[in-house]
């Protein structure tokens, strides 16, 4: 009888856990989008890149975001020679998963095919390291990691309360504290990454050669010309004009229809 009660408690915990995790998994389990993804992949494998693009786009149009879909879209556009679009989707994928090696490599390839070779503004080395550090993992990974750390840490602390020997008690207590610490660090990094992307709006130039103007007006003086696929920083938007910042530090205005925000 008592055994029965204990058993019931376990089931409750599992049910609770399942109840929490299930909604997260349910999105991935959407059969229609899964099918579109698979169709897109097979079309890509057959080198029907336009077809692949339309399948992937279908998923994106439904309001989903996915590293794999963005990355595959980038690849399909790259193969089609649409470097600007490839850049846009690679960058989107990069934003979701900044630590992904494949995305970085393909971004390099796409960047090589863009016309403008702009040298990036030199960053202070500590700033550069810091950005590399906070962008090493995707936000999702960091979130999952933080949950795992915190749960495990508290589980170990709980075990400490009931552990039989002093050694076990010590081991569980300190390891639990370390894990909780790691959990909070990952939360902090995730927070910083979110902040970074929220304050680093970027856009890709579209439409051949685009004149960068000194003021937001068609008649304004052209400062320079940018081409398809160049990534620029976005400072603000105003009446159909976007104030952009180039990697080398120059600023100017471009018509809104010539850029797509990442």
């Amino acid at each position, binding site marked *: 009888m008592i055994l029965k009660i204990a058993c019931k408690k376990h089931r409750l915990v599992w049910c609770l856990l399942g109840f929490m995790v299930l909604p997260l998994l349910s999105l991935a389990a959407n059969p229609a989008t899964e099918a579109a993804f698979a169709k897109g992949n097979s079309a890509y494998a057959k080198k029907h890149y336009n077809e692949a693009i339309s399948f992937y786009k279908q998923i994106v149009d439904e309001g989903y975001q996915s590293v794999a879909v963005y990355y595959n879209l980038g690849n399909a556009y790259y193969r089609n020679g649409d470097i600007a679009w490839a850049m846009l989707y690679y960058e989107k994928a990069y934003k979701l998963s900044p630590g992904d090696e494949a995305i970085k490599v393909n971004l390099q390839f796409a960047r090589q095919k863009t016309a403008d070779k702009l040298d990036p503004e030199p960053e202070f080395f500590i700033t550069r390291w810091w950005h590399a550090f906070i962008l090493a993992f995707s936000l999702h990974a960091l979130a999952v990691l933080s949950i795992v750390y915190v749960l495990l840490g508290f*589980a170990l602390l709980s075990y400490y309360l009931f552990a039989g020997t002093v050694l076990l008690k010590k081991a569980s207590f300190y390891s639990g504290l370390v894990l909780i610490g790691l959990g909070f660090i990952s939360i902090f990094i995730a927070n910083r990454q979110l902040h970074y992307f929220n304050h680093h709006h970027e856009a890709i130039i579209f439409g051949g050669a685009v004149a960068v103007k000194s003021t937001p007006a068609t008649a304004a003086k052209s400062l320079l010309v940018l081409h398809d696929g160049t990534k620029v920083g976005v400072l603000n938007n105003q009446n159909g004009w976007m104030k952009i910042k180039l990697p080398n530090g120059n600023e100017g205005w471009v018509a809104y229809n010539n850029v797509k925000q990442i």
Partner: protein
Amino acid sequence: MMRIRYYIVLFLGLLSQVAFSQNVRFTASVSKTQVGTGEPFEITFSVNAEGASFVPPPLRGFEVVAGPNVSTSMTSINGNSSTSTAYSYDLVAPQTGEFVIEPASIVVGGKRYTTAPIKIKVVKGAPVQQNARSGSSQGSGADDLQQVSSGDIGKSLFIKAIVSKPSVYQGEQLTLTYRLYTRLGIEANQLDKMPDFNGFWNEDIKSKTPYVQWRTEVYKGQAYRVADIKQVILFPEHSGDISIEPMAMTFVVQQPVPTEDFMEQFFGNNVREVKYQAKSNKVTLHVKPLPEVGKPADFGGAVGHFTVNASLDKKELKSSEQLNYKVTVSGAGNLMLMQAPNAIFPADFEKFDPKVTDSLSENANGVSGYRTYSYLLIPRHQGNPTIEPVKFSYFNPETGRYQTIATPSFSVKVNKGPTENNVTAYADDEQDITRTEKDIRNIKTDDVDLSKVGQGFFGSIWYYVLLLLGPLLFGAAYAYRKWYEQYNSDIVKVKSRKASRIAAKHLVNAQKQLNAGNSKAFYEAVFRGLYGYLSNKLNIPVADLNRENIVAGLRARQVQEPLINQLVHTLDLCEMARYAPVSGIAENEVFNQSKTIIHDIEDSL
């Protein structure tokens, strides 16, 4: 009829007037400007056109020995015939003093021309310039007209350096002419030294004919044979007063030698050949700096007068194809010294350094012609770029101002070319990755990992719930331990709580024995179970446990009397069965009964 003739004559008259008025020269020259009394000399008035009503000047103070002798010569060059007429008089001055020969006049084409007055100095006695070596300074030497001493060759043969402008701007071109004046026969000549022209860029004017062109010119009242032996165009490179060193030439001239021998004199052998070095005068030029006021920023050093034009060979092309853009600067000035005009091309045009072609000619007026800069352009991307106008600035020395002229702008249509996306020329300067990997990595096929845009896991409700789960778990564990410690702090209560569990253990054993048909062991187990249970429950050690204190204990805990009786009965039965076989009672029943009893006691306590 008369009218027509009248008009023809008038027309011809006008025509000739136009023709003559171009460069009529009417000059007066004397063979000597300083003569001795009684020494004959010649005065010549020459006109290089057909003149009428020649009026000689009143030759006061001179006696006309012979003349006027009129000689007419006609020359025809390339079909252009020209006439020249000379009126000459042989004069003798009877008295010493200074005399001025008044201007003569002539009418050419209806216009009256006059000569310049000539000053003649008449000195006492026979030939003024007596040859020292002749040793015979008699009056007979008075007819020794061509006699010139060696020290005086310089007066009969000299080189003048003439600049077209004495004062120029820096970079403005001027012409320097070396003009040879001679009244002597030249046998041979040799150029000794040309100046270095330090401070100038110089261009020689190539003579069109291999030999020099001689003409007659009157200089200081005397007629000379004149030839331009050298012409150079100069471009001053800096401002200030710049001197040009003299040019030196050595001539072998025929010098008349006075002689007593009449025959020799008659047959003209009275000359000897003399080597003589002639030096030109030193010229100093005043070079003004270019004004700073109004100097355009793109001024490239062009001085003169220019026009600029541009042309494009195509209006429409595909990307990566070639485009030729030509800028031509034409005019007169320092074309070869100026910088290329600053042409600005659309940013995505690949451009090469311009090819420069010159077509320049040098003449007495300076350097003129055109210079072409041809740019090879390769548009790299499609679009409609515009080639901005090329602005060309130059300094006009005539007005003293800078002028800026511009070419038209051109718009080009660049269509998408086949190779636009395969520009591999840039591949080298990028990251290290390119060296190890040749192509993009393949697509991801394993996991879609979808999420709704703007609904990331991080920061969602579920994230916080899961995050809080840890502390909650810990809190629960802590609370549980607190409760557990409290719960187990009373040993009596703990024992009592454990009682049923120990009983249950014995009963499970009893069940086993029952199934095995081992009745003795069965009763043993049931008995131990009940006793153990009661011992724990009533907190009485097993050794002290007997029927009396069991009943008392149960009564004290207000267990109902029938239940106590039933328990005592079962205990008795078990005790009995342990030692002797029992019949009439099913073992099963005993088992169930003991279970029920424990249950009931648990419930009632």
